[in-house]
């Protein structure tokens, strides 16, 4: 599926627009950046509660497709600005990390 498909899911709100045609092939959950850096899955939607600029750097390096901030976390201003500059899609949701990942997983299958 594509980022557009996530955008169409009722629980997810886009806060930073990216390239909506990017494909998503998996889901990845992790808040620890070192771990995400070594275990992140290419083209995955990354569900996390880390709404800071460093999440963007790890996303770029691991080539995951988008960030989904769960538990009602909002990106801080620096993250928002940088995500917009770099065209990285950031979604927010009030769902828990688990529920958010489950929704993406269901949408994928």
């Amino acid at each position: 599926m594509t980022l557009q498909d996530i955008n169409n899911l009722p629980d997810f709100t886009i806060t930073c627009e990216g390239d909506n045609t990017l494909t998503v092939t998996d889901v990845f959950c992790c808040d620890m950046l070192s771990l995400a850096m070594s275990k992140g899955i290419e083209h995955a939607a990354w569900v996390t509660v880390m709404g800071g600029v460093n999440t963007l750097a790890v996303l770029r390096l691991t080539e995951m497709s988008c960030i989904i901030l769960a538990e009602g976390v909002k990106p801080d201003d620096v993250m928002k600005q940088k995500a917009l500059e770099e065209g990285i899609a950031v979604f927010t949701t009030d769902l828990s990390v688990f529920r958010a990942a489950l929704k993406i997983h269901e949408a994928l299958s």
Partner: protein
Amino acid sequence: MTNSTELLYVISGEDFASAGEASTSFKNELKKLNVSPEVIRRASIAMYEGEINMVIHAYGGTARVTVDDKDIKIVLADNGPGIEDVEKAMQAGYSTATDGIRDLGFGAGMGLPNMKKYSDEMTIETHEGEGTTVTMIVHREPEVS
């Protein structure tokens, strides 16, 4: 004659907003040089952890990269406080990062262990109060024995 490419990155300390930029640019350069994806992945993780360490522990530094047909060599040099006990620092989970740094998602104590794991050779030269130089080599092809 072998081709060799040199890259230099200056990493500023305590600048969390641009932390990771050198590693991203490094990764893009390796792609241009047709390094295999698995080697790029390993070298990028090692580079990222080294970059972050210079940002959070050492007021920044430089990364000098040499890529030739056989190896990717990364030399990370800083003028930071040095590492008091290298053996301890190498242990998984050991970290002197502050709570503020941990809140940013760093300080898991996995940086140096990952750098060792994802590179083929790693040496650390450090002097208290003077700085630290970490040299990592990642082979472009697996060793044939």
